[in-house]
């Protein structure tokens, strides 16, 4: 059945309220089962041996001693994961990242793995594996890696997007260019031109739950995987390809997920666990240590970005150019391209150009991190806009409003925007009491904007009505932050029943059609759309059953507030039939009542946010403390406001951590110096103030409820907002994030010296 995805304004009964989440009790009592909380009969413990070198040839791996150790049931190397990728480069890189093939490309790269009867035996076995390395020169810095004399990681990598195509291999995987207009003419028009170079360090999603899975592969090719993931269907497809399994025979169940933020969209050790299980013919549980998570999962890019911006005295930005260098770790990515797409997306700049360089270095393969690539570009752009505002003597907010993107503005990546909310967020910021609050000594206030896409994609939902009229809703997008509530609310809203009568569960890959991964702020948008459509299908069935019960034509039945109502003069003696009454008779009117929907959820909206940050800087130590913070973001429609606020607050906190202290620190030896929460400093409770939020609702025209994704956008503004606040507190412009105490103090000294 074709469904209409267009937005229709309506009054909601359930949507927009603050109900209790269905998984709450399990999660406050310790009953909820996460990746590491499952066990299986005869289960083994899997452990991975990792390269201590950032770049090395693997000359030989001798596993004989480990194999002989009592209690060891399988030892594997890349030989046990033959290349079945059939020319698919992306898949081949995933395979090589899971297990090194003849060369180690970063500190922490997996080189072998064992499965043993217990933790102690597995640890002992790892020590018995003898790996002979030949060390190779390494490079971990993005700018260094681009130099002509840098050690080259991939001998056959020639930069794409360059004409003529290079004949010499380099670490630059691709060049991207975007934008429109004539930037030279734009700069010629400008009264002021500001140019700056920025650097951002590599950060990690920092989810508290390490990667964990329980894999079981049988000799007949059937297999099961219990795993903490953002996308169990994607994991199934990738693992099936890498292991040579049939998709239908690998059942993947997503456990409760203890945070992902993009980091659990990709497979890391799961194919290794499957390969161990296949070899041992026993279930294998593989849980990464925190150190392994930092060294060998997928952090974000470190970057180096040049921005040039020209403006007229009236505040009009006449031209803007950004050249951005993003490292993707040891394998090529498209991270700089995403930087290009997002850098100027909040603004209507007639002449804009972005150039992106995607670069490989000897660091772990970069993965998505909440609005991937956008925060770094926004740090550079939002800082530069404040500099422009200062030069022309206008307020930062007015310069932003003067150039703000609106419906009809052409996005830097091509298309023309439909209705978008960036102007609304800026107006809300301007009117917010926070903007008028008095600042104390050493304090400063900064604002910044941010943009991130929403994506839609393949979605499949099942809605089944029980004999008592309660509803099971099976969705295939993993619930990363309360989505089961939102889906139940949407189903209840459509069916006209109470929230408590709907139970949402996350279906495994064997019981539901394919669903794309929960990424790109798509969960509520996509599964919300499919839930609406599935509920509408179920309503059709309910109407048919009511018609049968009454013995009237289905055309004479309408669905109103959870009831079938017979319409027309001929039937006005018929009392309405509730969903419960119809459900009770389902067995005698044609069997189970259900609604299904399979859809490519298209028309995802755009996410925009503006933030206000107050910071206090200790001039003697360079330490910055966030004293007040406000997030304004367009949600399209907030289904469950608590969890929308929670996304805003969580994203802002991650951005603040990035802005202030979080960074990967590599030594000259190319090894990660701080693979733990002690020295990879994510914000703790006492670092943070309460985070004020304001939800705006500019409906997405391409969703029945107007939903936009809300998960990612608010990690984009904090770096710029904090940098601008520090600049206003101290007079010093920070161009290197994180803006840690030593960097701020050095900048203060340089200011004093200058």
């Amino acid at each position: 059945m074709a469904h209409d995805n267009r937005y229709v304004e309506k009054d909601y009964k359930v949507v927009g309220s603050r109900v209790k989440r269905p998984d709450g009790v399990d999660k406050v009592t310790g009953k909820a089962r996460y990746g590491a909380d499952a066990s299986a009969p005869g289960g083994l413990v899997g452990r991975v041996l990792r390269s201590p070198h950032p770049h090395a040839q693997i000359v030989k791996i001798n596993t004989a001693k480990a194999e002989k150790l009592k209690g060891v049931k399988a030892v594997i190397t890349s030989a046990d994961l033959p290349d079945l990728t059939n020319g698919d480069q992306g898949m081949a890189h995933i395979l090589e990242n899971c297990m090194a093939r003849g060369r180690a490309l970063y500190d922490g790269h997996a080189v072998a793995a064992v499965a043993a009867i217990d933790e102690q035996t597995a640890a002992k076995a790892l020590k018995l594996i003898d790996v002979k390395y030949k060390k190779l020169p390494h490079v971990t810095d993005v700018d260094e890696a681009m130099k002509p004399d840098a050690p080259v990681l991939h001998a056959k990598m020639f930069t794409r997007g360059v004409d003529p195509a290079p004949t010499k291999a380099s670490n630059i995987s691709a060049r991207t260019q975007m934008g429109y207009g004539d930037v030279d003419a734009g700069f010629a028009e400008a009264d002021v031109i500001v140019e700056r170079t920025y650097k951002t360090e590599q950060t990690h999603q920092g989810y508290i739950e390490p990667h964990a899975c329980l894999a079981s592969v049988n000799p007949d090719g059937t297999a099961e995987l219990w795993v903490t993931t953002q996308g169990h269907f994607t994991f199934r497809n990738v693992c099936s390809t890498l292991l040579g399994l049939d998709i239908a025979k690998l059942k993947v169940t997503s456990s409760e997920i203890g945070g992902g933020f993009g980091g659990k969209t990709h497979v890391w050790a799961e194919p290794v666990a499957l390969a161990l299980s296949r070899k041992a013919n026993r279930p294998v549980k593989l849980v990464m240590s925190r150190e392994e998570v930092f060294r060998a999962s997928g952090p974000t890019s470190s970057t180096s970005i040049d921005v040039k911006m020209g403006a007229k005295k009236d505040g009009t930005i006449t031209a803007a150019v950004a050249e951005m260098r993003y490292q993707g770790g040891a394998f090529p990515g498209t991270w700089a391209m995403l930087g290009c797409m997002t850098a100027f997306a909040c603004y209507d700049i007639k002449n804009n150009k972005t150039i992106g360089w995607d670069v490989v270095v000897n660091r772990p393969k970069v993965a998505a991190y909440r609005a991937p690539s956008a925060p770094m570009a926004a740090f550079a752009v939002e800082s530069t806009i404040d500099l422009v505002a200062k030069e022309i003597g206008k307020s930062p907010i007015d310069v932003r409003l003067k150039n703000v993107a609106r419906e009809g503005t052409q996005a830097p990546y091509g298309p023309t925007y439909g209705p978008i909310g960036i102007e609304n967020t800026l107006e809300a910021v301007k009117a917010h009491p926070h903007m008028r609050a008095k600042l104390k000594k050493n304090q400063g206030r900064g604002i910044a904007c941010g943009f991130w896409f929403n994506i839609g994609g393949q979605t499949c939902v099942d809605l089944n009505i029980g004999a008592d009229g309660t509803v099971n809703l099976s969705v295939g997008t993993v619930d990363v932050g309360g989505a089961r509530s939102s889906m139940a609310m949407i189903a209840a809203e459509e069916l006209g029943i109470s929230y408590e009568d709907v139970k949402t569960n996350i279906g495994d890959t064997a019981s539901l059609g394919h669903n794309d991964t929960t990424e790109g702020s798509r969960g509520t948008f996509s599964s919300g759309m499919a839930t609406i459509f599935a509920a509408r299908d179920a309503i059709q069935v309910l109407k048919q059953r009511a018609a049968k019960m009454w013995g009237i034509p289905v055309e004479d039945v309408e669905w109103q507030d959870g009831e079938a109502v017979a319409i027309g003069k001929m039937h006005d003696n018929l009392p309405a039939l509730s969903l419960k009454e119809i459900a009770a008779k389902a067995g005698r009117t044609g069997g189970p009542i259900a609604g299904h929907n399979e859809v490519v959820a298209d028309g995802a909206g755009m996410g925009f946010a503006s933030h206000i940050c107050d910071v206090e800087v200790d001039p003697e130590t360079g330490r910055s403390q966030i004293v007040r913070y406000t997030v304004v973001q367009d949600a399209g429609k907030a289904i469950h406001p608590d969890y929308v606020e929670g996304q805003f607050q969580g994203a802002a906190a991650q951005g603040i951590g990035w802005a202030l202290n979080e960074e990967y620190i590599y030594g000259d030896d190319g090894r990660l110096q701080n693979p733990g929460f002690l020295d990879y400093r994510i914000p703790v409770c006492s670092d943070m103030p309460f985070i004020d939020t304001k939800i705006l609702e500019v409906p997405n025209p391409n969703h029945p409820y107007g939903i936009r994704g809300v998960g990612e956008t608010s990690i984009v503004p904090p770096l710029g907002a904090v940098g601008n606040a520090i600049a206003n507190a101290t007079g010093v412009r920070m161009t290197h994030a994180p803006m840690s105490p030593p960097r701020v103090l050095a900048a203060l000294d340089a200011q004093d010296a200058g």
Partner: protein
Amino acid sequence: MRYERPGTAKEAAGLLAEEKGQAFLLAGGTDLLVKLKMGMVEPDLVVDIKHMAKANEIQSTAKGFSIGAGVPGARLGEHKALSKAWPGVVEAANLIGSDQIQGRCTLAGNLCNASPAADSVPAMIAAGAKAVIVGPKGRRTVAVEKIPTGPGQTCLTKGELIESISLPKPAPRTGDAYLRFIPRTEMDIAVVGVAISVTLERGVIKKARVALGAVAPTAVLVPAAARALVGSKLDDAALDKLAKACSAACNPIDDKRGTIEYRVRLAGVLAKRAAKIAFNRAGGQS
């Protein structure tokens, strides 16, 4: 790994002395278990000292305080007399890690782990604390500043362990303070730590002890910094001299937690701030 829980210090010393393999003491375990987890140590013997007599006691005597080697940080904070006498020492101990860590970590453990950045060690040094060591040859008492000899190394010989830490009874009009710098508000290892204790006579500093952490291979006592204070009412000139002396005493390394330059600079900044707190606690008015 053999796990033993002796009932006396002497018994513990005997176990350590007899062990041919790698032996470790377990007090709060907040360092040892991390090393176990990371595979940095593979003990043959672990001696849990929390079951030794008096290991969990804080004793108040006429001479001062004796703090058993198993007393966790949280207990120090709850001890009113100790907190009144040596607020700087208690604050320093209470800065180690989270409330969870406070439930376990001990002064003796913090000292014997011999990290240059240990928070409680500079504070103990400034307060003139001593460690009571028991070993195969009996009991000896050593000033805290003499215990660590380098990162992860102490002057304790095979079979020796710290039974308790003793703090003197503070002289009248004595105040102490400890400040450390960390990038966050909690949960970090000190980038720089400064402990100062001063004793006043008629409003003038008569005696002072200044100790620094995280700026040298061990926590260090800085007599030159103390001299900068003695005879002053903590005027700006004295504070500047103090800051200079502290910075001059630094011999730090560049690492993930801070640069040499930053540590040297911060030592001076924190010394001034700590001195003011200690001075006020001693009843001084600057």
